[in-house]
Structure formats: C-alpha cells, structure tokens
C-alpha cells in the first residue's frame, strides 16, 4: 500500500527504535522513503553523535523491501553486527550507525484490506536531540490555568468543578475512571481514550477504562494500540506528551517524518500518585478536524495530576473498607460468642441443679433447675431472632393492627418480670389511637426491647416504668414512649446506643436489642428520641407514621 506524493513514496512500514543510554528509547516511524540518516540537520533522522557522519546512510524502498545503504560513512553502517554497504532489512534486525544503535521493527507487507492510509505526512518526534521539546511538553509543575487559551476559562472551571465532584463521590475505581474519561471527552476532541494503571504488584501497565467517540466508529477500541514509546515516555519521565499533525506545524519542517498508524494526533499524560507515577491517560484521534492543542495537553495534564491522587485514595479506601469489614465481622462473632457462652452457662447451671435435684429427690432443686433451663432456652431463641432481624434488610410486613394492643401485649408479658424485680409497671394508653398500619410483630419486638431495658435499668427498690401511647392526629403519627426512673445513660454511652453488641447490661445484654429496634423503626420511616439523665431515668420515644408511607 504505497501512495505517491511529491515524488516520495509513503506508507507505514514500521519504525526504527533508537536505543539511548539509560535504557530509554526513541522511535522513528518509517513512512516516507527515502529516509536520510546523519549528523546534519537536513537529514530526515538527525543523529547528533560524533561517531555518525554528516550524511551517514539512507533507507530506500525496493519494492516492498526496506533497504539500508551506507553513504560512505567514516565509522560504517552495521546490520546485525556485520558491516554492510547495502543490505535489505527484516523485522528484528539490529542496525548500527557509528555508535547509534537501532532496533528495526518492520510491519509485514500490507496485503490490503482496503484501508488506505490517507495520512501522508503526520510527523511527530518524541525527543530527538535536534528538536526543542519545550513547546510540546508541560513540566510536572508548570501547569497554569492562565495558560489555557483553547477552551474558555468558564468551561475549564466548569470542567474542574465536575472532576472535583466525581473525585468526591467516587469510591469505586471503575466509576471514577469512566467518569473522568467521559468528562475528558467533553473537553478534548478525542477520538479514542483510555486510562492505564500500573499493577500495584508487577508495575505492568494495563488499560482500566476506555472510551471511543461516536466519530471514531466501532473499530476504535478493538485496534487500540498505544505506542509503547509514548507511554513509556509519559510514565517513566513523568512528562506530558503531545503528537500532532506536522503538516500544519512549521516547527517540524523537513525534520523527522513519521506517521503513527493513521493517527493524526495523540496525547499521553502521567497519573501521579503521592510518591510515584501510577498510570497514564492516553487519547488520540484519527480525524483531521480533531487536532489537539497545547491547551488540550495542559488540561489533560492537570486532570492526570488530580486523578492520580484520587486513584490512590480510592485504593486506600477499598483497603480500609476491607479491613473494616473484617473488623466488623470479628466484632460480631466475638459479641455473639459472648452472648451464647453466657446462655450456655445458664443452661449448664440449670442442668447441674436439675441433676442434683433428681439425684437427691429434691423437688425445689428440680423446679429451680428446670426454670433456669427454660429461661435460657428462650434467651437463645430471642438472640437468634434478634440476630436474624438485625442481619438482613427487610421491608416491614405491613398489616392493620390496633396500636394500643401491641403495647398491651408487651406490658402483660413483662408484668411478671417487673413484679419479680419490684418494679412498678404502668401503662397509659391514648384511647384515640385506633387502627394503625405497621408491622405488628416487628413493633412488638421494639416495644418489648424498650420495656425490658427499662425494667433492667431500674433499681431493685422503687423502680417505676411507664409506657404510654400518644396519637398526633395532625401529623398522622403516633408515639410509644417508655420511661423509667433507673440508672440513666451516660453521655459517653449515649453515642453508642444502638451500636450492635454494645451493652451496659453485663452478661445479660446481647447488645442487639436496641440495634434491632433502631433498624425496625427506620424501616418504618419512623424515628426514636432518647432523653436521659444519669441516675434519674431515661425515656425512649418511638414515633411512627399511622399509615404505611408511600414509596
């Protein structure tokens, strides 16, 4: 696939990769032949090395074959270590001019799939010695918003506001990267774009998000090959790279002419983390109308600086989240283990006393042992129910019930317990409260938990617990309040109320009752108020909508 233009034959044939000291390399795509190599600036590839002659060698096209010819150089031209006068080049050959070594990368002859490269003279140079790069590169520190002229200041500010918003919200890496790419495409006339991140373990760069604009068509991403050289340049040296269309760029003049695939222009900027470069953003375009400017590069560079930190934060956040989850699971297991052990202790005790009673035929001991056993088995049942209620989110099973009857049931159930402790349990219903739409069983559980807590909080003598209902017709809400004159909740503990496995009840508490209560009430779109004074008492008030809330 060779096009004739101005006597020069052009097509993309591959590239020469100049190996430079320090492991870096510069590549020179081969598109137009002949290609002159030498020390003089008039060469297509200028090599400012004194071992290279002014006009050292040239590459010519012989049919489909690329040939190298020595032009009578002082230090010679070598292919795979052999000094040559003229020689055909194959892919993988090693070419040396004086002290300058190139790897030869040639594409297999194009058999023609109807895709004729229209680009004939896009030129680009990454960093040859002979060309000043200052215009093309923005140093890591040198980004100034004032320098942006391509896009209006307002648009740029808007852009950064939007990136800021994405960065604030994004706790998910994919979401973050895709959001940033979308925004980038709004600001920069990119055809294709991707964000690469280094694998934290291997350091290998991999594409983590990519996007193709509508103009570019579907083939964009499938064939997305990113120049390794550009990428390395951006990530190793931490510099922003812009390749542009040389036909309209005087600075290139008759210097190195290369075509990167069919791409008119490409940009690549590093993503900087706190300590190192962690990836890169790459965009390119095939369309002539979509040329990148220095301002685009500056903008992209600024984006790169911002999201580098964000990517690191997201990773840290993920790691923290995992650690927190593990800690939460550990806490839950420990809390449950503790509760279960206490209940088991009761059961062991019950059966020991029961056994003793049987052995000695003492009815008192038998009865006592049996009571302890059955009490602890119902504690275990309550624990399991609380655990299940706590563990999964569920919608309340709404039904129409008499609001007061839920409370009466609890009061009746706990009367005995209160009496046993010498606590006076009172119930003051609001008779106006009629049918309400709630999950009766769930709210019963809440009230049961609150009244149990209230009785437990009371001193052995003179304890008083008062349960009230109250209808607020205006607001279509009703309240159930449980007051006690017990020990009260300290300010410190107030913050921990409702936290799973937090209990001030010693062995008796599971630390789940209030957690479950809070959860059920919030599932009902209700709320809980707590007023407490140390040693004076506590009032818990549940406020619930009378009718099932509309979604």
């Amino acid at each position: 696939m060779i096009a004739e233009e101005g006597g020069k034959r052009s097509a993309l044939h591959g590239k020469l990769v100049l190996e430079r000291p320090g492991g870096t390399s510069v590549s020179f795509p081969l598109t137009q032949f002949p290609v002159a190599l030498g020390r003089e600036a008039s060469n297509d590839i200028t090599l400012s090395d004194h071992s290279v002659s002014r006009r050292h060698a040239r590459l010519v096209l012989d049919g489909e074959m690329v040939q190298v010819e020595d032009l009578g150089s002082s230090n010679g031209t070598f292919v795979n270590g052999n000094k040559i006068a003229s020689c055909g080049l194959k892919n993988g050959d090693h070419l040396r001019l004086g002290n300058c070594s190139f790897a030869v990368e040639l594409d297999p002859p194009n058999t023609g799939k109807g895709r004729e490269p229209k680009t004939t003279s896009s030129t680009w140079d990454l960093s040859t010695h002979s060309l000043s790069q200052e215009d093309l590169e923005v140093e890591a520190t040198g980004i100034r918003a004032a320098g942006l002229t391509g896009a209006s200041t307002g648009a740029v500010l808007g852009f950064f506001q939007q990136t800021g918003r994405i960065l604030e919200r994004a706790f998910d890496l994919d979401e973050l990267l895709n959001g940033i790419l979308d925004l980038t495409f709004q600001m920069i006339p990119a055809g294709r774009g991707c964000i690469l991140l280094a694998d934290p373990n291997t350091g290998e760069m991999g594409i983590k998000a990519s996007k193709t604009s509508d103009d570019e068509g579907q083939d964009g991403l499938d064939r997305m090959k990113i120049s390794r050289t550009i990428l390395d340049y951006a990530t190793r040296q931490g510099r922003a790279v812009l390749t542009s269309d040389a036909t309209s760029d005087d600075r290139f003049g008759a210097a190195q002419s290369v075509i990167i695939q069919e791409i008119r222009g490409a940009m690549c900027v590093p993503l900087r983390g706190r300590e190192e470069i962690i990836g890169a953003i790459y965009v390119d375009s095939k369309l002539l109308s979509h040329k990148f400017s220095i301002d685009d590069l500056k903008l992209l560079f600024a984006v790169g600086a911002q999201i580098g930190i964000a990517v690191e934060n997201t990773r840290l956040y993920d790691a923290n989240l995992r650690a927190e989850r593990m800690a939460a699971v550990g806490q839950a297991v420990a809390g449950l283990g503790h509760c279960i052990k206490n209940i088991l202790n009761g059961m062991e005790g019950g059966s020991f006393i029961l056994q003793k009673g049987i052995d000695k035929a003492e009815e008192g001991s038998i009865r006592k042992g049996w009571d302890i056993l059955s009490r602890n088995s119902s504690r275990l049942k309550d624990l399991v129910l609380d655990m299940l209620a706590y563990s999964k989110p569920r919608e309340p099973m709404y039904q129409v019930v008499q609001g007061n009857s839920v409370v009466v049931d609890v009061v009746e159930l706990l009367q005995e317990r209160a009496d046993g402790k010498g606590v006076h349990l009172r119930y003051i219903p609001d008779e106006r409260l009629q049918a309400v739409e709630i999950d009766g069983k769930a709210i019963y559980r809440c009230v049961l938990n609150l009244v149990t807590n209230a009785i437990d909080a009371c001193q052995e003598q003179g304890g008083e617990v008062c349960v009230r209902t109250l209808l607020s017709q205006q607001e279509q809400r009703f309240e159930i309040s449980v007051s006690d004159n017990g020990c009260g909740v300290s300010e410190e503990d107030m913050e921990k109320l409702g936290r799973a496995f937090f209990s001030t009840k010693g062995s008796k508490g599971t630390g789940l009752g209030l957690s479950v209560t809070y959860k059920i009430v919030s599932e009902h779109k209700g709320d809980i108020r707590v007023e407490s004074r140390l040693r004076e008492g506590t009032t818990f008030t549940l406020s619930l909508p009378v009718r099932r809330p509309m979604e």
Partner: protein
Amino acid sequence: MATIDCMEGNTMTEMTRKRILVVDDEQDAREFVKAVLEEEYEILTASDGDEGLKIAEENLPNLIILDVQMPKLGGFDVFSQMKKDKALCEIPVIMLTGIREKVGVDFSKEEMGDFFGKEPSAYLEKPINSCDLLATVHKCLGGGGCCCCGGS
C-alpha cells in the same frame, strides 16, 4: 442482697467451713456456682461490683469468684479496688469470663483499667464446667480434689 447460706446437715463444722463470695450480675450464674460449691463451702452472693465489695469488706471471705462483665463496676474494677484495700488484697480471686483470648478477642486496656500487671489466682471460662470450678476452688483454698472426678 447479701445472702448467707447456712447448710443443714453438713459434716463440716462452722469453724472449718470456708467462705466464698460469688459476684455475678446474672442470677442463673450465681445459682450455678452456688449449687456446685454449697456442700463444701459457705456461699455469699452479690449481684454487682459495689455490693460485692461491700460484702467482701463485711465478711472477709476466703475466696472471691468474680464475673468480669458486669454493668457499672466490672470484674476488673472490683479486682483492682480489692488490691488497693489492705483487708482484701490477700484474698484469692477467680475470674469468670465469657470470652477471652481463646476466641481471639482480648480485653481492651479500658476494660482492664488498673488491672494490668496484677493477676487473679485463676480464670474460668463460661460456660463453667462444674468439675473445673470445684478443682480450681480447691486449688485456691488448698482443699481436696473434685469429688465427682475422683480427685484433682
């Protein structure tokens, strides 16, 4: 609610019967310990830390069995207060714990309070094994082995 249980028909005389104070907020747990030990010892019970300290001062028991997790004054608090009290500091203490290092959860410094650096005579984990309890008590009080296990 201090309870002093005097056993009837006991073979030992009141002089030789040693006194054990059981401090646990849970009634079932107190009953359990009492049932295991009451044939050999005189058992006092207290349902919280404050009450426990009060009864200890009044009765000077030979051994105190302390539950760690109690509301208000916890087991470690009671222990460290005892160690500051000249009358009580020599009394051996067995700690009852619901949970300890075995499940990977250690007590926090807050929970331990002044407790660091001092150790009770023994730990017993809940659920309590009656033979272990008896054997541990015997060890602390220098008595015989566990009757049901045929000696310690």
